[in-house]
């Protein structure tokens, strides 16, 4: 199947949506489909063969972080050309409510379209104002997917209608088999944090304020921090004794991210909000590392309300410290949590997730394909239905003419 994927966020800047689109495209290739990804980026950028750049993206603030997005006439022209050249069986846009390529692609598209909603956004005045513009564009989507319950709720509240739930995928085996970084985890105990530590909703400050009590109760504990940001600013005011225990890795590659997750005894996710799913939690779970996370909705759901990982009240550094100390002292509990997490993460394995997404493609584009090549799976007993659907689609095409009192093409057939 030819699938046109649209990622509205710039490929070179790591992020949840980008990673999702990349993994999905690679899974689709492995399953024998032909995906093409349209994404912001320069023509001379070093991109995989299946990626088509749509021009330079402009950094703008959107939904609480800085995102790089494409808009304007040149982008719209490129989108049209990509759609025409691609001749896709199905168009799959991501985050179509964000101002960018996905929106432009839907605007120009007229075939079957699937949309995945990733983020949870609190209702804003801007969204309410944009509603009349957004609605006719979103209406073109035949199948809506939400990656989490929070994303689905956002969709229901902002745009009406419903979506089916297909969670974010995680390449479980890649994380489970990663080699820990040399010298880690430290026998004295290691905590891990990953994310932009200068962005307040990632909650690094909550962890930072918990470090002093943790080190008092469990001396020698080391903290492994990975992610982009200004280290000096983030550690401002931290006493030198605590600072010595912190190792900053800076921005890490995907391979090192998996190794980093395998290098810690407890992975800490102190995010204070704005998370819709928590892909990083599933990655830590896949790596077999026990997770300690804030009890925001998305995290509580992924961690099965505390059965597959420990939770602490959102924003509460003292509670984080108490839980971290308890976990560092209790090897058995860590093992139990890791085991439960490995079991729980299976539903997020890319193999499962990609199969479900392909089922969506087949549901929206299926009739046409089944009729064309007698697809083995769909053909079982449904050939009459497929034949019926073809005539029905023909009838709809003609409804435009009937509205103006003209005989439809179908009526003229013998």
């Amino acid at each position: 199947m030819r699938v046109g994927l649209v990622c509205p966020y710039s490929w070179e800047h790591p992020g949840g949506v980008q990673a999702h689109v990349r993994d999905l495209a690679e899974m689709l290739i492995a399953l024998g489909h032909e995906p093409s990804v349209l994404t912001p980026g320069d023509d001379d950028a070093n991109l995989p063969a299946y990626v088509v750049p749509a021009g330079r993206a402009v950094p703008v603030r959107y939904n609480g972080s800085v995102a790089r997005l494409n808009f304007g006439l040149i982008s719209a022209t490129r989108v049209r050309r990509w759609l025409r050249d691609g001749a896709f069986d199905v168009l799959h846009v991501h985050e179509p409510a964000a101002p960018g390529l996905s929106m432009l692609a839907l605007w120009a598209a007229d075939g079957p379209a699937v949309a995945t909603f990733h983020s949870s956004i609190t209702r804003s005045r801007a969204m309410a104002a944009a509603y009349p513009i957004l609605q006719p564009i979103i209406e073109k989507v035949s199948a809506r997917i939400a990656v989490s319950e929070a994303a689905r709720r956002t969709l229901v509240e902002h745009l009406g209608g419903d979506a089916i739930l297909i969670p974010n995928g995680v390449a479980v085996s890649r994380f489970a088999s990663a080699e820990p970084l040399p010298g880690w985890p430290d026998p004295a105990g290691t905590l891990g944090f990953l994310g932009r530590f200068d962005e307040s909703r990632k909650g690094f400050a909550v962890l930072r304020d918990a470090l002093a009590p943790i080190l008092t109760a469990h001396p020698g504990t080391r903290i492994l921090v990975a992610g982009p940001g200004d280290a000096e600013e983030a550690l401002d005011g931290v006493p030198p004794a605590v600072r010595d225990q912190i190792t900053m890795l800076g921005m890490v590659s995907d391979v090192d991210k998996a190794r980093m997750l395998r290098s810690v005894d407890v992975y800490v996710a102190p995010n204070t909000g704005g998370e819709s799913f928590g892909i990083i939690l599933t990655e830590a779970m896949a790596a077999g590392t026990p997770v300690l996370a804030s009890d925001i909705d998305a995290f509580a759901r992924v961690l099965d309300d505390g059965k597959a990982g420990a939770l602490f009240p959102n924003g509460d550094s003292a509670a984080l410290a108490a839980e971290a100390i308890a976990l560092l002292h209790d090897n058995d509990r860590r093992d139990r949590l890791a085991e439960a997490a490995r079991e729980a993460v299976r539903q997020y394995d890319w193999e499962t997730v990609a199969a479900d997404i392909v089922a969506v493609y087949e549901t929206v584009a299926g009739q046409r394909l089944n009729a064309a090549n007698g697809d083995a799976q769909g053909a079982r007993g449904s050939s009459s239905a497929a034949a019926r659907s073809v005539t029905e689609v023909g009838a709809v095409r003609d409804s435009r003419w009937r509205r103006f009192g003209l005989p439809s093409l179908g009526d003229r057939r013998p």
Partner: protein
Amino acid sequence: MTVGDASIWISVAILLAAVYLWLTANRLDRLHARVEGSRSALDAQLVRRSSVALELATSQLLDPATSLLLAEAAHEARDAPEDERELAESSLSRALRAALEEPGQLDEIDATTGGPELIKDLAAASRRVVMARRFHNDAVTATRAVRRKRVVRWFGLSGRAPLPTSFEMDDEPPKSLGAAL
């Protein structure tokens, strides 16, 4: 303001109104097409599910009583007239749950030749019914929202296309199938 100025403004207003009407008519046309498409996709998935259910019922993998129950439900779902379709498909969902949620039943089928394939087919078909129905009802909601607009009613923009209705049924798949997907 001269008469000429006024007539220019009036023509501009009429032109804008015409463009708006044309865009709305197009939008509605697209929505009607989407509803018809999603409905036929749902039909196809329902037929597929009843076929697999029938295949399972006649495979001799189940005990005779369960087989009969399931075959009956599958037949009824296929032959139901349009106004009883939702009820008949719901009964099939219940029959499938009754047949497959019995502890140990699935393991027994899995152990036979051809069993695992049938179960996999059934899991896929059940999942697709849930999807197709969600997509269809979504299209119906969007279409009805636009058809409620005053401009659509006053200018008869929906033509003679019937008001679409959602498809309400119990589509809960057997819990034991979750792992087979």
